[in-house]
């Protein structure tokens, strides 16, 4: 009864806050079609030229390729080492399990700027900054925790007696894993891989330290571009990136349910 009377001030406040929250994204969306080339508002005409220019920008295209290759590499490597860890943490009892579980989440507690510098100090003497291998190593620490987490969650929620049933039916531990466990945790594993890819693809700060002329990732290219210029080409690029993120999130949602992954 009272809710109708007190409804509209709440609504106004919440709408304004949503506007604030979404303002930069909306802004980017609008000016990516803006006909003028300086950052200003309101837009003066509609154009696709920024998207066309984007398609010809060699640096961005190369950056995109580097980020994509590194992202896929990081995702695969993170899965390769993260999935077994998740199995150990959820399926085996051992003395330092709690410690190890904390250890595999700890990279998320270190600021990217600190980790970036630390990686620079190690990778630079080895002369692998600015290489695909160096970038993949640099992104490994911040992606493995997510793979461990999503995979552990799938392992904990799956029906354990399916594994036991397979064993009683004559499957060796390895065959039980490949024939029963893996198919059942596939959504969590896939989600972990996609998240690892997205994080690597979006990562800017660590990459700033370890990129080089041969291999510079897209976020770093964008960073340097924005540092010097601010024409709407970046907006167009941003819209493309947002579209890609949304696409991936839809994949995760379909595969595992976004809620499970977020918390």
């Amino acid at each position: 009864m009272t809710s109708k009377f007190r409804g509209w001030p709440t609504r106004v406040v919440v709408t304004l806050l949503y506007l604030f929250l979404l303002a930069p994204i909306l802004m980017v969306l609008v000016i990516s079609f803006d006909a003028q080339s300086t950052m200003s508002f309101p837009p003066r005409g509609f154009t696709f030229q920024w998207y066309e220019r984007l398609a010809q920008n060699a640096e961005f295209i190369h950056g995109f390729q580097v980020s994509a290759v590194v992202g896929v590499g990081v995702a695969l490597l993170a899965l390769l080492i993260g999935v077994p860890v998740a199995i150990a943490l959820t399926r085996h009892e051992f003395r330092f399990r709690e410690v190890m579980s904390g250890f595999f989440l700890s990279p998320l507690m270190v600021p990217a700027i600190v980790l970036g510098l630390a990686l620079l100090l190690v990778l630079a003497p080895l002369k692998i900054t600015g290489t695909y291998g160096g970038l993949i190593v640099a992104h490994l620490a911040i992606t493995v925790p997510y793979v461990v987490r999503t995979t552990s969650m799938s392992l904990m929620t799956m029906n354990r007696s399916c594994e036991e049933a397979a064993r009683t039916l004559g499957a060796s531990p390895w065959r039980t894993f490949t024939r029963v466990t893996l198919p059942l945790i596939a959504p969590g594993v896939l989600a972990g891989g996609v998240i690892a890819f997205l994080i690597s693809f979006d990562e800017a700060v660590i990459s700033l330290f370890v990129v080089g002329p041969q291999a510079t990732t897209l976020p770093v290219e964008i960073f340097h571009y924005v540092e010097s210029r601010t024409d709407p080409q970046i907006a167009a690029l941003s819209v493309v990136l947002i579209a890609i993120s949304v696409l991936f999130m839809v994949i995760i949602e379909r595969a595992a349910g976004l809620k499970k992954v977020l918390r």
Partner: protein
Amino acid sequence: MSAKTRSARLTVLGLTVPGLLGLAVSFVLPLAWLLRMSFNRGDSTGYIEETFTLDSYAQFVGDSYYWDMAWETTLLGLGVTVLTIVVSYPIALFLVRTESRFKGILVALAVAPLLTSSVVRTYGWLVLLGNQGVVNQALMGAGLVDQPLALINNRIGVYIALVEIMMPYMILCLLAGFGRFNQELEHAAQSLGANRWRTFWRIVWPLSMPGVLTGALLVFVLTISSFVTPRLVGGGKVFYLATEIYDQATATLNWPFAAAIAFILLALFAVVIVIYQRALRRIEAQ
């Protein structure tokens, strides 16, 4: 029996060794190296003397310029945290209470910005807050100001952009914390005669405290370590610990000093986390 435990141990070892090696190379070793580096002696020519000295730390502690920078960083963390709570709380409370059929979409919209790289969102703020941006155009159009306000290349812009960038994290934490919030409880308090204001401060706010605390910790930690936004919106004219680490490492090439600042930042982190755990324990004790 012992053969069995041995094989079980081998299995655990086999499963975890690749992961341990991976993190050793990409995480532990670099941090250890960083710590070692902070005890070397460096200068602005990029020369590094292998030694064992506290010079870099002394340089930081002995210079009021760096004290100011550490203070500004802490202030940024606190300010952004408080402001983020203020602007996120109404959205979170609304999302918990609403029975709208668009609830799912509204929740998705509130956290969707997380899907966008902070470089992109920072760029959006540059466009919004620039001299010819929406905000200044609107203010001048309304005749409130004659000259565009300086909203970028200074601390004001950094605060505004960071608050927006941190909002989705805070909303997520608040929503998770509201898990034990029960609207029945609120109605009960009101039916007992508490007015809305009192209901909020006596019932809703205390119940949401764990979520607020978790969100505050996360936002504080992310803010004081953020680099892209202070750098781009600050236009290289405002300095925080994170931007200084980058400058020392890439421009001045004084790696030992950059390493020392990095560990001072980590120490700040540790202090905040200890305070958070104290506060959490106190709340849970109540």
